[in-house]
């Protein structure tokens, strides 16, 4: 044997039920008997999506997939494949699924083990600026299949069967949305009696710390386009629009190139691939207003108006862009469509949980070792994401909370770590799925400060159209600031709750309806921290500056470094004697604290 092998055993629920543990034991036994333990690594992976053929064993290099493996097969696999280097044809299965292509390159890394890539299947594998790369991985085959073999109705049925739900955050069933848009404009709905319809891709990603859509478009723009063309065929539209923020210049450039290449190959334009169907896609740049991620505001912005939401109904599926029925989906939703068509809606519905199918992309950030862009099957727990994929909290610090859903979401404390990630479970725990921001918070962060950060953001981004959101978020922010500065009273906490619930109920659009969530969820889960700020005038994390005091302890050797660095001359003392901070002068900038080499300055 001349080379190293990596054997991966699927550790998804399906394969666990089919006794993959026994297979692992048998495998390790065999490797031991052959004295191969140093040359062969045995890994476990998350669900590989081939549950019907499980238990699955994959051997790299070469990406040989063995299906329906029994413990009795193991000696033969080791003898033939590992010792003699000849893959075993009897058990090998040929699979040409679209999903999980990354596994051939990344499958043996722990970071990717629990992941499953459907929307991001080509990201990090292909050259996004070369349409040939996309074509070589069955690119635009789903479109061809749809145009050859499927009626628009069948396409919608397939999407419905998949159970795919909107990945922008709200989780509306995608197939139902398609059906509604397809039907609008018929006699059933005389309001919009026109056969003119539009398809929109919402790439106006605005959550702080979120970069799912940017990475998806920068890594694989064609899959989004292919999804949109299929959507256009299904509902009978001729024009598609990608609404993307101008702050993403590289994504815009790659999208422009992808559209030009797709036109050249006849995937866009008149009579696509020789069929009767014509469709084209344009790009509209957003100016970076958060509210334009809301569908009615986005549509208004495309029309040339000021990006402000309007009441629904009528929903865009009935009356959208220029008053015509409009199908609007998020980038990630579109990226799933080619897989739903080629790997089938039935297969797609086997991934995930009862009511949330498929996978979800998350931008994992904050206090976690492996920050990154990940895609996991629905139902993966927060613990698996943070500890198995994210590698846990750096510097052995304590986990405090995880924030999901960005400024519309909430903070979940440690007791919710075993919550499975799906639309219903996250909502039940008091947060939301959102578009996929996931920020890990450790003991060094103050929950009042976190709530304030998100509220500052939404308050800034409030468009001002409706009073609850415009005035309410401002009042909430004032109260929060008061608490953070140590001037809060106990009734302020109740006022925040009352005001928050009122804003949620009375606001016009999703921005206002969800803006109080970070505040309400932190009060719910970390009430004691709010009370400490109010009663004891203390911030346990040492973040709220106004509540901090700096003190010099007896460790001080009198070097004078702190005195020199203090911008307001609040520190006095003679050389080689203990120095003192004048609390009245101190502005709590922390410069002395970081300058002191002897750990003689403490913050309380």
């Amino acid at each position: 044997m001349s080379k190293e092998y990596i054997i991966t055993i699927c550790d998804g629920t399906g394969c666990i039920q089919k006794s993959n543990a026994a297979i692992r034991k048998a495998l390790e036994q065999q490797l031991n008997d052959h004295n191969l333990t140093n040359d062969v690594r045995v890994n476990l992976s998350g669900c590989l999506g081939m549950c019907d053929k499980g238990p699955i064993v994959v051997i790299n290099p070469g990406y040989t997939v063995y299906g329906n493996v029994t413990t009795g097969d193991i000696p033969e696999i080791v003898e033939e494949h590992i010792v003699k280097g000849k893959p075993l044809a009897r058990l090998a299965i040929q699979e040409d699924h679209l999903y999980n292509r990354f596994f051939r390159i990344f499958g043996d890394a722990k970071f990717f083990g629990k992941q499953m890539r459907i929307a991001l299947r080509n990201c990090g594998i292909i050259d996004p600026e070369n349409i040939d790369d996309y074509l070589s991985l069955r690119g635009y085959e789903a479109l061809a299949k749809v145009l050859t073999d499927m009626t628009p109705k069948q396409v919608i049925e397939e999407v419905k069967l998949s159970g795919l739900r909107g990945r922008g955050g709200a989780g509306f069933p995608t197939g139902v949305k398609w059906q509604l848009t397809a039907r609008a404009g018929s006699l059933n709905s005389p309001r919009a009696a026109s056969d003119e319809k539009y398809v929109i891709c919402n790439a106006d990603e605005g959550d702080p710390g979120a970069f799912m859509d940017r990475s998806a478009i920068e890594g694989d723009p064609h899959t989004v386009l292919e999804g949109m063309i299929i959507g256009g065929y299904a509902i009978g539209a001729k024009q598609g629009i990608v609404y993307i923020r101008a702050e993403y210049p590289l994504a815009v450039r790659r999208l422009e190139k992808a559209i030009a290449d797709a036109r050249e190959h006849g995937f866009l334009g008149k009579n696509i691939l020789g069929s009767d169907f014509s469709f084209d896609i344009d790009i509209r740049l957003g100016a970076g207003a958060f509210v334009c991620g809301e569908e009615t505001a986005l549509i208004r912005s495309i029309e040339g108006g000021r990006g402000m939401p309007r009441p629904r109904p009528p929903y865009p599926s009935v009356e959208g862009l220029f008053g015509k029925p409009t199908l609007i989906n998020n980038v990630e939703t579109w990226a799933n469509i080619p897989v739903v068509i080629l790997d089938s809606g039935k297969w797609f519905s086997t991934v995930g949980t009862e009511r949330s199918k498929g996978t979800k992309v998350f931008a994992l950030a904050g206090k976690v070792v492996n920050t990154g862009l990940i895609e996991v099957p629905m139902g993966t727990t927060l613990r698996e994401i943070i500890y198995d994929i994210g590698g846990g909290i750096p510097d052995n610090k304590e986990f405090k909370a995880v924030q999901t859903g960005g400024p519309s979401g909430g903070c979940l404390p440690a007791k919710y770590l075993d919550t499975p990630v799906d639309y219903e479970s996250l909502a039940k725990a008091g947060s939301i799925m959102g578009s996929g921001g996931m920020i890990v918070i450790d003991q060094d962060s103050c929950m009042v400060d976190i709530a304030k950060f998100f509220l500052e953001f939404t308050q800034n981004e409030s468009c001002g159209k409706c009073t609850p959101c415009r005035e309410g978020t401002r009042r909430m922010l004032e109260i929060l600031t008061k608490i953070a500065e140590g001037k809060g009273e106990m009734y302020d906490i109740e006022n925040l709750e009352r005001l928050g619930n009122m804003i949620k109920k009375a606001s016009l659009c999703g921005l206002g309806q969800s803006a109080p969530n970070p505040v309400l969820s932190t009060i719910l889960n970390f009430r004691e921290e709010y009370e400490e700020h109010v009663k004891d005038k203390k911030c346990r994390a040492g973040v709220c500056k106004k509540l901090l005091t700096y003190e010099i302890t007896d460790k001080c050797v009198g070097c004078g470094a702190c005195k020199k660095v203090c911008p307001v001359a609040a520190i006095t003392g003679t050389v080689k004697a203990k120095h003192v901070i004048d609390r009245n002068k101190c502005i709590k900038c922390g410069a002395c604290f970081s300058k002191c080499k002897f750990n003689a300055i403490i913050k309380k």
Partner: protein
Amino acid sequence: MAKPTDIIKKKRAEAVSRIIGKGYLSSKRVYVGMATCEIAAGSKEVMEVFKNAVTKGGLTDVYLSQKGCAGRCNLEPTVEVIEVGKNPVRYGKINPEKAQQIIDKHLKKGEVIKEWVID
């Protein structure tokens, strides 16, 4: 009239032959991450080193390509070396100096630089 599925089959075959024409079947393939995040971490300079090696530095039998983001934010810029019949090697936190060493050691002599490999 050809069916769309037939047209796409033909297009794929053409695409594959174009990729092969660009040297895809070289004994080693090198991928450099080039998303906004990777570029911000310095991947453009890294790519430049590889490009120079291919065009001027006499590095042959290597297929060089850019790629999107694989999601390893904290380890960027990333570089992958894929060799037929071997497990792929992924390098993290690569700068131009390290890129040069990958060329000299890994690509030219076949020595994997283990300390930069990410898991």
